[in-house]
């Protein structure tokens, strides 16, 4: 069991953790080193995550006992296909986003670089910890590490950021405390904190009200953390006012990892039969999700600020994931899994583009983008791909997660959800094509303006390569994920389905 590649389980969080202390030490002497240390650490984690995924797929689930203590006494890290998949998704996105954030951080927070990257790496550590751990309390600790660092990062943003961050702290703490209460209730009835152990001990206790309440606490806690409608109020402000580099990092990952917790709790701690059938949870969740999809899209439609629009679109996209989970059938769940990955790519791409726009023009109002594609053609090209994916145009990734969700809804014989998904893709089209139209066309009213435009057209001013390359990679990733989605599904995700699906 102690083969070297199993140690990747701990290295995946140990490397960024230790690097995050190293940054202030090194940063004291060499201020420029912070970014490179952070990038190298996340890169190393990415390598580890791939090793883990490969090991899991070839040799089965990895159990890693911290300190050599056997579960349920010691903390256990478990890597199964779902974990491995999430780990790779989080790492790859983080790596690309970190790379792209270099110049933006340099511009927006020049004197806070060292501290920024310290906290940034801690946030990454927290997210990875949530992904790899197999212990509900340890998960809480990582959850709070991730949340605390996220609060701090959001607070350094522009105008409304501190207040947004404070609201996020209040809401997030309630969420985390609810999660902690859920853990406590389960501990009372079982005396265990290990997920695998809990899964074994719980089924005889399913009649107990305590277990039911524990599940309710877990769900409300995670729902707050991932911004599921109607508990999403903290999300738009937090994403809008955070520094661009931060929202590019948090928006694609934070909510997805929280959705992962939800899936873990529903299908690993509890059995699908309990969480979907004994309680009509699937029904409640999928209806909430449907509401989230519609409300998020409609609210996004009302925004002028690109980042705020993307934030509301996140609310709606979270709805897709929860809808897939709530449908409780194979296709729906596959769609949810796939959408976690796809949406992470799309949102990372779109927020990175928003960051690039902020970097070059300082503008975020989508009505002031007139003909920006002349200045930054590649960035806007990536924007188009990301937007098309959000709308769900094949062969982009967004289409396929939508496809599986529709199949899931059809399997569940719920025509309303099919309609919701289709309508929401139209709403997405409405607000994303508004952006595209403004980025490419400018309404012409006379020749005078045309002359002015040709002047603009002459100067091409792309963002620096360190920002452009990740953006292009993300956009390419969206296309490739779409085309090769079946490889991911049949190669990884079907093994990640809970038993009985």
């Amino acid at each position, binding site marked *: 069991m102690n083969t070297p590649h199993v140690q990747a389980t701990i290295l995946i969080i140990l490397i960024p953790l230790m690097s995050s202390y190293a940054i202030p030490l090194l940063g004291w002497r060499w201020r420029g080193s912070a970014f490179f240390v952070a990038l190298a650490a996340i890169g190393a984690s990415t390598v580890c995550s791939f090793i883990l995924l490969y090991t899991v797929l070839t040799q089965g689930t990895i159990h890693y006992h911290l300190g050599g203590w056997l579960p349920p006494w010691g903390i256990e890290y478990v890597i199964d296909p779902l974990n491995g998949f999430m780990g790779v998704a989080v790492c790859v996105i983080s790596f690309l986003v970190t790379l792209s954030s270099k110049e933006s951080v340099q511009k927006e927070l020049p004197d806070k670089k060292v501290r920024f990257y310290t906290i940034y790496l801690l946030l990454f550590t927290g997210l990875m910890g949530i992904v790899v751990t197999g212990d509900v309390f340890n998960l809480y600790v990582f959850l709070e590490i991730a949340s605390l660092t996220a609060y701090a990062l959001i607070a350094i943003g522009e105008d409304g950021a501190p207040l947004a961050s404070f609201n996020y702290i209040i809401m997030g703490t309630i969420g985390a405390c609810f999660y902690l209460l859920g853990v406590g209730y389960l501990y009372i009835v079982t005396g265990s904190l290990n997920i695998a152990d809990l899964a074994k001990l719980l089924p005889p206790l399913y009649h107990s009200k305590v277990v039911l309440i524990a599940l309710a606490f877990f769900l409300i806690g995670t729902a707050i953390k991932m911004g599921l409608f109607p508990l999403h109020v903290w999300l738009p402000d937090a994403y809008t006012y955070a520094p661009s580099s931060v929202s590019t990092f948090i928006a694609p990952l934070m909510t997805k990892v929280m959705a992962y917790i939800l899936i873990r709790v529903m299908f690993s701690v509890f059995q699908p039969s309990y969480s979907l059938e004994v309680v009509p949870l699937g029904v409640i969740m999928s209806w909430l999700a449907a509401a989230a999809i519609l409300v998020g899209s409609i609210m996004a439609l009302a925004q002028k600020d690109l980042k705020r629009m993307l934030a509301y679109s996140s609310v709606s996209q979270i709805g897709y994931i929860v809808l897939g989970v709530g449908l409780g059938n194979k296709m729906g769940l596959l769609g949810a899994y796939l959408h976690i990955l796809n949406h992470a790519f799309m949102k990372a791409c779109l927020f990175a583009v928003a960051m690039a726009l902020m970097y070059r023009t300082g503008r975020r109002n989508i009505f002031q983008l007139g003909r920006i594609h002349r200045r930054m053609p590649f960035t806007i090209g990536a924007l188009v791909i990301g937007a098309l994916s959000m709308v769900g145009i094949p062969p982009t990734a967004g289409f396929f997660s939508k496809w*599986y969700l529709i199949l899931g809804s059809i*399997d569940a014989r719920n025509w309303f959800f099919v309609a919701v998904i*289709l309508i929401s893709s139209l709403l997405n*089209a409405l607000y994303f094509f508004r952006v595209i139209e403004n980025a490419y*066309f400018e*309404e012409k009213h006379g020749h005078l303006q*045309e002359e002015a435009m040709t002047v603009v057209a002459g100067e091409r001013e792309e963002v620096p390569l360190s920002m452009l390359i990740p953006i292009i990679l993300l956009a390419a990733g969206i296309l490739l994920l779409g085309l090769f989605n*079946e490889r991911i*599904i049949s190669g990884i995700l079907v093994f990640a389905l809970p038993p009985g699906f």
Partner: protein
Amino acid sequence: MEIIYSHKPLLAILVSLAASALILLSGKRPNLREAWTILAAGAKFLIVLSMAPSVLNGQILEYTMVTLTPGISLQFRVDAFGLFFGLLASGLWIVTSIYSIGYMRGLQEHAQTRYFFCFALAISATIGVAFSANLLTLFLFYEILTISTYPLVAHKETPEALAAGRKYLAYLLTSAAVILFSIAYTYRLTGSLDFVGGGFLTGHGTPAILRLLFVTFILGFGTKAAFMPIHEWLPTAMIAPTPVSALLHAVAVVKAGVFCCLRVIDFVFGPSLLLDLNLWLILCYFVSFTIIGASLLALAQDNLKKRLAFSTISQLSYIVLGAALITPSALLGSILHIAFHGFMKITLFFCAGAIFVKTGKENISEMNGIGRQMPLTLGAFAVGAIGLAGIPPVCGYLSKWYLCLGSLEAKELVFGLILMTSSLLNVAYFFPIIYNAFFKKGDGKEPPHRGEASWWMVGPILICALMSIILGLNPDAFIGFHQIASAVVESIQGLD
């Protein structure tokens, strides 16, 4: 039926895709950029043409790329029907490319690189639609076609053009959502989406579900084919540059819609299932309404391109009518009409564009006496109009003949009458234009001497007009449209 694995279908799509990338890269050098376009057009046509012999021998070319969803791959399959449409679209792309160059340079349009880029992309998607082996692949290219055409519609960037673009997207994306539902449901019902001559839905689901599916399919694809209550986007989209209207809104895009409808009728549901469900007659009445209604509306248009657009709407429904009548002759007529209407309508649009470039006139009421200024152009226009009215020897009469024969075979005389009426209406809205152009005096402001548009434009016009006549005399000329169409009919009816 023999299946051969071949890279040719993929190549045919990639050629113009590669061209679109090259076009973007060489945006600074117009001559090089246009060279890519024409080169790709020629290469594409040759590739598609090279597949014709084996298809006519009863073979099917197939190429499978990645798996898209369990059981469904991104797969190309060139059967007779796909080849037919592919030949038409890629063949007409050559003439349109040449014409585009004349048109865009003649008007000194802006954003030409984007124009040619999107054009190449749209053509790739059209060929993709033609060669798709299953509904999901078809939908994929169908959507790419929709999106890549949007910048072309909004090309002028005036408020009206942008509004037209929005309307276009609104109609087509909504219909795409409906199609997506139908495809997903079909997939859940059968577990397969592969086209099979004669349909693969037989034996699945209840009649009620199948009827619902048929309605959603036809409504979905029918939006692109501009059926009557959902046709609004097409006349509005006429604000696009004329080559776009010519190739895309007379051949590629709308024909893709019709092509998809036919795929659904004959390769998903199948004639026998339609007969069982009694759906064919309803569809016939539905499209007949469009045939007559659109012709009547065409009469009321003063803008030449809009009149042509309504004529297109009406003619597209001929094709679907033929397929819905189910009899072999009707089907043959409908498939032939895809090609013949393409040739005739593209001639007419080219003429409209040439008139606009030369004189800046768009409205029919301003075109008195213009025939004396541009006799070649208007002559070609007359050829196209005659053809559409169904008068020999221009090719339109042939497909119409088969359609009428089909309605007799189906013992539904009504539809024969409708076709006749529509022909008369065609005469009513086209012939006054020709008459006014040649025989009425203009308001005197035009130069009385001859002045055709540049040869980049007149050349394609004449080629298309000539083709229309030759095809009317010998439908197997050049490519063998008649032969391929017969093969299509055989592939559908033979398996019945």
